[in-house]
């Protein structure tokens, strides 16, 4: 996993392969720890993500709440079809901005 700051407001997380119980808490803490105070837009590049479980959803919600507390947003970039289905099944596509294409 890699976290880069695109500009003073936007941070991009890439290289997420799986977001499951085994790594969910660690991913959440690492992203939070390296998030500059000025970031208001957190882009999670999900193009490499092959699998997501309910603990991974918990991490997404937690980051969403962190960003909301600073009037910012989390965007999910290019999730694969199976990941998008899990988001839709749990209706979290209503909470996150999902960017395809």
């Amino acid at each position: 996993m890699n976290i880069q700051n695109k500009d003073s407001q936007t941070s991009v997380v890439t290289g997420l392969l799986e977001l499951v119980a085994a790594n969910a808490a660690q991913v959440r803490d690492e992203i939070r720890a390296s998030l500059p105070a000025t970031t208001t837009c957190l882009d999670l590049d999900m193009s490499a993500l092959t699998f997501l479980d309910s603990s991974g959803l918990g991490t997404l919600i937690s980051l969403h709440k962190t960003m909301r507390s600073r009037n910012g947003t989390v965007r999910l970039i290019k999730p694969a079809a199976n990941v998008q289905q899990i988001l839709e099944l749990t209706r979290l596509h209503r909470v996150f901005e999902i960017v395809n294409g």
Partner: protein
Amino acid sequence: MHREFRDMIKFEATCDFAAVRNATLAARVWLAEKNLPEKDLGAWELVLVESVNNAVKYADPAARQLPVILELSCGDRDVEARVTDQTSGFDWPEGEVALPDPDSETGRGLFLIKSLTDQSAYFRHSCQNVLVMRRARPAMGKNGLLEVSQLQTRLAEAEAALTDMTAELASNYESLVALFRYSSELGAQTNSKVFSKRLLKDLLQISEADSAVLRLLSPNGKQLETLLVLPEDPQLSLRAIALDQDCASVEIGAARNRQDIWFGPEEPLAEDDPLQGSISAGNGICHAFFVADQLVGTATLGRRASNRPFTAAQVNLLHTFIDFLAIQIVNTRLLDDRTASSVTRRELEIAAEIQRSLLPSMIPACLPFELAAGCQSALQVGGDFYDVIPAGDGALLLVIADVMGKGVPAALFAAVLRSTIRSMPQLFDQPAELLATANRTLFPDLSRVDMFVTAQIACLNPRCQKIISASAGHCPLLVWQPGRQEAVALGESGFPLGIEPLTRYVQTETALPPDALVLLYTDGLSEMRNPKGEMLGEKRLIQLLVQTAASSSGAPASKDFLLSRLADFREQAPLMDDQTFILIKHLP
């Protein structure tokens, strides 16, 4: 009786998240070998992960030493999984499981297991518990081949999927075409409402919604005003809602929390939501939109009850279209502002032109008196003017006036006053009567627009060396006479013109011996301020007039002296009002 052959397999994993995850991956590979379609493989992977995770999560330290056991059995019609845990067990809910609150970080595992399996049961024992889950699979024929009926079902499913994909592609194409069309209009000055209506109609069609409400933040930023309701209904008018209003409005919620709000069978629109009756409340989404972090408005889409909720793709569509709309709206506003300010600039140019044309191009001689006048405009053109008119028998009628207000209306009234006075030469030697008549003439027009004019009129008579003056709410005449330390403010002032229709004025007669100096002025002179904010005031103006009389001989030199002293007082402070004055000097 149906006899079924079932394939079975058993996995044992150490009780930690990484190990049980590996077991589920191996289980998926095994299920793939049984020809399960991709959709079923995905569902089983998630179900197994959630159930083995629970076995790890709830294990106490003693149980951690024991393995988690995952058993699968695959028949023609279904797949069954058993997960054995060594925990103290938990209560397995019967029936459907509700999703937790969107903000909750836990509680979705059970929902996923229940949603993706057809049957599930949890058996608690003294030292271990077993979770059994079953999910139907597409049935297989003899020799492991699909039966014809299954093939037909598969084919129908594939066709439906293809139709969906084609529809999505087509809607993407439509969106692209629409966006290209809109982008060609960006920057052009279009009517926001017309543009919004077209965009929203396209959006309704592409996103398969049947109603929409578009609201914009009012200019004072306090309420959401309705711009558009689709389908249009002339009978219906949707009132604006105040942002601080205390009601269950999804629009206010979306604007305040900067988050889309959904409504549907599970979370219906509140009964007192202002949108009730204007939007199809079966399923809907409300989106607040911002430009440069500033709220611009809200857009709400709705569908009738029978329709499905909006998909992620349709929500994306809504965001993209509304972002476009927001930019167009803000653009149009900027253009409107620019046009308005250029109209104002042009108006000020016209007003300045009128004002300049009112001033006499030359001041007639009136020996032994010498006159000089000044009119300095502030940045915004005001309604000051002065006039010097030959009054017969060598006399001059002097007029100095200040029309309340600025811009073209003030300049126009100044022009009308000038003509009105000039049209009554028979009253030039009776300033009080002249003011009363001018007031009667102008009163209806002035009072209609709530304007008024202050004016000082004076008849300067060189033969008897005196001045007769009358004032309509104007600054007094300042007179310095030789041998005096002070100048005096003369005259009794009546109502400004335009206040009382039948008011009368009093006139004052003052002798002007040689060396006398008289100042007629507007309040732009006495009320001007220096950078510290101090006002000049009548007292200081009188002192300046005394100094002017002492230091200068003729009227033009007196004017220069006075102007330089006024400039000294003002320093760098900007001129807030017009400064107009007439100086009369009795040459010795």
